[in-house]
């Protein structure tokens, strides 16, 4: 059994969990929601094990000194989907809002599908520039932050659907798929809670990145595109935090800021490497 095969099972697991969560929206069956949650847990545990296995595998290749599997695009996308599950399951444990799964698990599933089908999963020895503990801290904190923002984005989409539906037919209680959504107030709160987790993590990610740059190149900040985009993301979520406590900006506008923030996050993560030049390009 290789880690690659296990990741395939994980992908299938997330797919089924996703379908079941959407099924839950349609059927409102508690049993379906339970099954979906169990699958999400199973996928998460398997993925944890598979990442550990890949770590072990990095020691097995010829000339491989072993490294935390966070060094190339494939590994980072796999790790990203793992962190999404981690944050989602934490929030699920605390708030038990099953409908949220239908809007969060798809992110993890898409990430895994992309990694498994499109990205180069070969294990190769690390280039010297990436041999640094700062890199590991930097990547872990950034991705945990990104994952929290993914959850917040899913919840914000639900919020906009819910609020849109409720204002469209204001007298009748919202039925259909939206019926099992948590109330707008709860969604707003979940959105905030997720960003509350993500914001300090992103800040820490930017700081560890700066510390690494300072150590390696003698400047903690040089406005390279990757750095700048992470700062843009940070500005947007800072705006979100203040929007929530400002009259006229709470609710819809805050939810939109959260979605825009996640789009910027994705651009920071992928767009910068694929479209803009810079120091950070993975695996070039």
């Amino acid at each position, binding site marked *: 059994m290789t880690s690659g095969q296990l990741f395939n099972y994980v992908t299938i697991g997330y797919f089924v969990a996703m379908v079941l969560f959407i099924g839950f929206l349609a059927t409102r069956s508690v049993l379906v929601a339970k099954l979906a949650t169990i699958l999400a847990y199973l996928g998460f545990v398997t993925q944890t094990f598979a990442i550990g296995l890949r770590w072990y595998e990095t020691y097995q290749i010829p000339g491989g000194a072993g490294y935390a599997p966070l060094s190339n695009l494939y590994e980072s996308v796999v790790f990203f989907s793992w962190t999404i599950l981690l944050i989602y399951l934490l929030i699920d444990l605390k708030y038990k809002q099953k409908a949220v799964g239908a809007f969060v698990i798809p992110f993890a599933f898409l990430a895994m599908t992309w990694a498994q089908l499109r990205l180069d999963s070969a294990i190769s020895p690390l280039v*010297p*520039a990436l*041999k*640094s503990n700062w890199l590991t801290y930097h990547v872990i904190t950034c991705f945990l932050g990104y994952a929290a923002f993914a959850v917040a984005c899913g919840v914000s989409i639900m919020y906009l659907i819910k609020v849109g539906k409720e204002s469209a037919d204001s007298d009748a209680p919202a039925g259909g798929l939206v019926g099992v959504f948590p109330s707008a107030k709860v969604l707003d*709160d979940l959105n905030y809670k997720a960003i*509350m987790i993500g*914001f*300090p993590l992103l*800040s*820490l990610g930017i*700081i560890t990145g*700066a*510390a690494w740059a*300072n*150590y*390696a*190149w*003698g*400047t*903690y*900040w040089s*406005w390279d*595109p990757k750095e*700048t*985009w992470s*700062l*843009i993301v940070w*500005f*947007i979520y*800072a*705006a979100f935090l*203040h*929007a929530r*406590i*400002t009259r*006229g*900006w709470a609710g819809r506008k805050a939810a939109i800021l959260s979605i825009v923030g996640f789009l*910027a996050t994705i651009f920071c993560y992928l767009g*910068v490497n694929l479209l*803009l*030049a810079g120091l950070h390009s993975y695996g070039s």
Partner: protein
Amino acid sequence: MSVKQRGPLGGVWDFFCSLKLTIFTLIALAITSIIGTVIEQNKSHQEYLRFFSEETIRVLDRLQFFDMYHSWWFIGLLVLFCINLTCCSIKRLPRVWRLVHNPLLTPSNQVLKTFSNTDEKLVKGDIKELSARMQAFLGSHFASARVTEKDGATYLYAEKAKYARFGVYITHLSILIIFLGAIIGNLYGFKAFVNIPEGGETDRIWLRNGQTSMPLGFTVRCEDFSVEFYGESQRPKEYSSILTVIDQGETVIDHRYIEVNDPLSYKGLTFYQSSYGPAGDEVISIKVNVRDTDKADAFTLHRGQLAELPSGDRVRVADFTPMFRNFGPAARIEVLPKEGDARMVTVFKNFPKFDEERGGDYIFTLVDFDQLFYTGLQVTKDPGVWVVWLGCTLMIVGCLVAFFLSHRRMWVILTPQEGKVGVRMVGSAHRNQPAFELFFDELKNKFRDELSAK
């Protein structure tokens, strides 16, 4: 903001305190920052010509888009941001300070009504004895209480995590501290470079423009430099130097290995391996035989350096190349006899017999050569960096406090009411209300149990 008649100054103040301005500035910073990630910054005119016309370049240059992070308008946004932050804090901090240091011990009925977590019970008994019991109750289930008496009523007040109120202000202050650190770095720090040939040393470095030099105050010696290439190519794989630092005649750092990503620091200066190059003069080893004898002399010479043979004739390496056409390393050696004209001899390392066949009275052999490199070091000094790290630490601490701690307050008010005592419990948390509600509901049950138990 309520409509108050405070004149134009009050209006300006309110503008700088407003959270709407904060949101505007943050979004403006986010949007404008994109420009610098799309247009490469600080490139030469030639490079921009590959993407833009002369006309466009002129416009973009006027807008300072080619160095936008240092443009007046971007810096202006940052200054606006700091003013906003400062004003907002000045406005709110005193209120929070008072709240924390002079807690509301005896809130009026009106104030109490604004809190939604509340419970009340009318019990028989003595107000003193009940107050003692409620003190013990708060002490064991929440926090120890302060007792105040006012107008015949007894007020108990207990609180937890009052300093959580300052979390937000720590975060905001941290941003100003980070800016301060960056400014210190800009004013008192510098970026410089220096090239040191292998075996050489320096006590000066050159500032970025390459014109001005400045003294280090100590000496750095490059003991050795090595470079490894990818296969046969000229593409360097790894390069490193070994440096020694000598301060006032004393070796303070001895043979320290540095490479890309692994610098050396001394007295606030950091030396980064950043480049390398040939240090001009190779050292050339030659051997000189006198024909038909077994007398031989070996010399190691720099280009142009003279050496005297036992006969009194002198030689020097007039020229050297590591690659002469396809023949490999070659040297031109000039012989300067005691009397008579100078002559030139060419020797090849790969053809050691070549000079013997020439038939001169000396036979020269090019034994070997050693290419010396210089190590290119980037030298930086940033006295503000510690201020920046302090700011970063405070930011994280501030965020954690702001998000995950909440100032919780609890009042128990005992009032005599027609022979009985009204006991009222009120609670408030400055954030995370749902969790506090759960806590309060549980406490409410215990509160009732406590009061019904006799």
